[in-house]
């Protein structure tokens, strides 16, 4: 039923429809409303049978999920930012053990400096941990992806991260159609584990593996992720058949189907909505531009991305994280997909720490790109306040004890952090 719902509440309901048997919860902004919503559903008995564990940390949350999943329960948890880092060891453990845990990551910046607002630095820091990583553009897609995620995880015996932009999606109230219990049950059958702790059939899980076999075990993980490249579209297709919505999949283009456009903007997550608005505006003005959204970042749909971009004259990657000391992350990945082709890729980093990505800035950016006022293959930061930056660099040059960067810059800006946008 279509209702006006807060994203977090919608996700909580969607997860409940998937009948998780164990939910572990540790609060961190901006995921709190999801785990609170699930707590209510368990307490009222709407989600039953389900054990809701209020754990002592994110590390505890994923660890409990590991135990529960290994014991054959469908398992869920949610986190963001610092919490994702705190469970980093467990992330690798879960994927290495092949446990089909589903986790929502309410994407948020990573400190220092501490910042509770949206960007992709959290998930990007863990892009190699062996989890499948899906990105939602809207709250509807976030809902849909959770159902698909459980199906995907259990089919492959791999954990799946569903990424939704913190605050921007989690705290946005918009129309969402949450599948009914009947519909969800029809789509997602009961969990049949590949491995399970069972006294009637004891197994040892988590043994040490030495040089003689470690490579093979790791390559197997890679092979399973590669299988996901087939599985993700297949499950998305099944979902579309049942629910009539094209959520998920590997990539999507706008407009669809894609006419080879001169300029293609590539991005992940909710910023694609704003980008599509700009694409429409520019196309109405005669500018040949389109957008490509990457919905499944890991495994990386290299062929699909290459196919969508190979005819472009230029590709502009707009990403909400970057690799300090080297450059864009999605940008590097896109360049990999275009290896051997003469398509220039522009690395644009935008929206760090919750800075808004506006239509105005995107329009200016694209105009600059088309007019070649920006160079490709060089890191560009959208809406960078050069004056602030230069002042701090000057301060650092002037004296050794120049003080904490964050405090200096904030003082220059005249802001005491209080929710300014």
């Amino acid at each position, binding site marked *: 039923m279509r209702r006006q719902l807060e994203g977090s509440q919608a996700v909580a309901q969607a997860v409940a429809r998937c009948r998780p048997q164990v939910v572990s919860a540790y609060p961190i902004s901006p995921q709190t409303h999801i785990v609170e919503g699930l707590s209510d559903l368990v307490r009222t008995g709407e989600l039953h049978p389900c054990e809701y564990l209020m754990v002592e940390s994110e590390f*505890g949350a994923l660890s409990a999920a590991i*135990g529960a999943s290994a014991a054959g329960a469908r398992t869920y948890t949610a986190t963001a930012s610092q919490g994702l880092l705190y469970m980093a060891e467990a992330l690798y453990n879960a994927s290495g053990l092949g446990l089909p845990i589903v986790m929502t990551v309410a994407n948020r910046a990573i400190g220092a400096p501490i910042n509770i607002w949206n960007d992709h630095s959290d998930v990007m820091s863990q892009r190699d941990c062996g989890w499948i990583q899906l990105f939602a553009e809207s709250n509807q897609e976030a809902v849909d992806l959770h159902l698909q995620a459980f199906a995907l995880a259990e089919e492959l015996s791999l954990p799946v991260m569903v990424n939704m932009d913190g605050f921007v999606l989690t705290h946005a109230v918009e129309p969402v159609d949450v599948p009914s219990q009947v519909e969800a049950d029809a789509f997602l059958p009961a969990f049949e584990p590949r491995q399970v702790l069972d006294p009637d059939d004891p197994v040892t899980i988590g043994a040490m593996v030495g040089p003689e076999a470690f490579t093979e075990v790791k390559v197997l993980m890679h092979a399973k992720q590669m299988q996901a490249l087939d599985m993700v579209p297949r499950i998305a297709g099944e979902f579309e058949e049942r629910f009539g919505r094209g959520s998920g999949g590997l990539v999507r283009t706008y407009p669809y189907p894609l006419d080879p456009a001169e300029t293609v903007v590539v991005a992940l997550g909710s910023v694609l909505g704003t980008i599509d608005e700009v694409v429409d505006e520019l196309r109405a003005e005669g500018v040949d531009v389109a957008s490509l959204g990457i919905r499944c970042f890991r495994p990386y749909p290299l062929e699909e991305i290459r196919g969508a971009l190979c005819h472009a004259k230029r590709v502009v990657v707009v990403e909400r994280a970057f690799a300090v000391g080297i450059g864009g992350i999605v940008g590097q990945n896109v360049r990999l997909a275009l290896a051997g082709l003469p398509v220039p890729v522009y690395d644009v980093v935008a929206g760090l720490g919750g800075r808004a990505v506006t239509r105005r800035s995107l329009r200016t950016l694209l105009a600059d790109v088309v007019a070649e006022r920006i160079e490709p293959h060089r890191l560009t930061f959208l809406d960078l306040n050069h004056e602030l930056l230069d002042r701090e660099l000057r301060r650092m040059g002037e004296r050794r004890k120049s003080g904490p960067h964050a405090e200096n810059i904030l003082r220059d800006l005249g802001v005491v952090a209080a929710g300014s946008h």
Partner: protein
Amino acid sequence: MPEERIKLYQLGTFAVGNRLLDPDERTVQSRSERSNTLTSGHRACQGCGEALGARYVLDAAMRATEGRLIAANATGCLEVFSTPYPESSWQLPWLHSLFGNAPAVASGIAAALKAQGRSDIRVVAQGGDGGTLDIGFACLSGMFERNDDVLYVCYDNEAYMNTGVQRSSATPPAARTANTKPVGDEPGNVFGQGKNAPLIAMAHGIPYVATATVANLHDLEHKVERAMELHGARYIHVLVPCPLGWGSASKETIRLARLAHETGLFPVIEAEHGEVVAVTKIRRPVPVEEYLRPQKRFAHLFGDPPRTDVVARVQAVADRNIRRFGLLEVD
């Protein structure tokens, strides 16, 4: 002829024989049908106290649960020597995840079983002193405060043995480890640090806390059985001498465990909901020196010149334990 009551003490290992006891009072270890949960072929050192302890505990737990048991294990000696790829010594469903998360993993398993309506299956978590008291401490405390239905067993050999004998918060004062060498002002591990795990467990008010050693098999098995009668968070702390780390002869493991108890350095107690309900009395207290001398990790106390001052401080620790827990037998 007048009757004279004499006390009969059975010394030495109790694992074999028991012919003086009624059959149903004999230990699990003496029975041929014991599950042998940690079966032979593992790669533990000769005389490993932990291998002994784990076998004793799990066989007793398996008997108490009729084999309906799942184990979560922290990284450490036990995990490493019991699962040398591609073999496993474990005869029960067993999960090793990480170093610091065994209590949380066990909580997750227990939650899964409950949600699936399979709470007849019980959960045991195990780890060494490092994995339990240091890196796993937050998870342990969380499991305690939630009163999750898990028996956690800590095998305490008083250092990070698997990585080469480094100091943990369970390392006793004056002990030598790789990073508390007998150099400098305070030879060995310093006094005034460390955690008292059983007291911390008791402070959480959980249903059952007990300490035990591998020297008293009846006592240890009884405590495991008692724990498995109960539900909620339970904790058993087992002293397991490590010949390699302690620098003791492999044949001395059980004797040293007994001396630890008889000196008062390792109080053997039971507690329920934060209150001590039973203590194993010391029949004849033994001076700590008798316990310390056979261990090379304390060799620096008996060199030239001997550190009688440090030994006296260790004795004071023992005496305090005896007073605090009322460990002396009163005839």
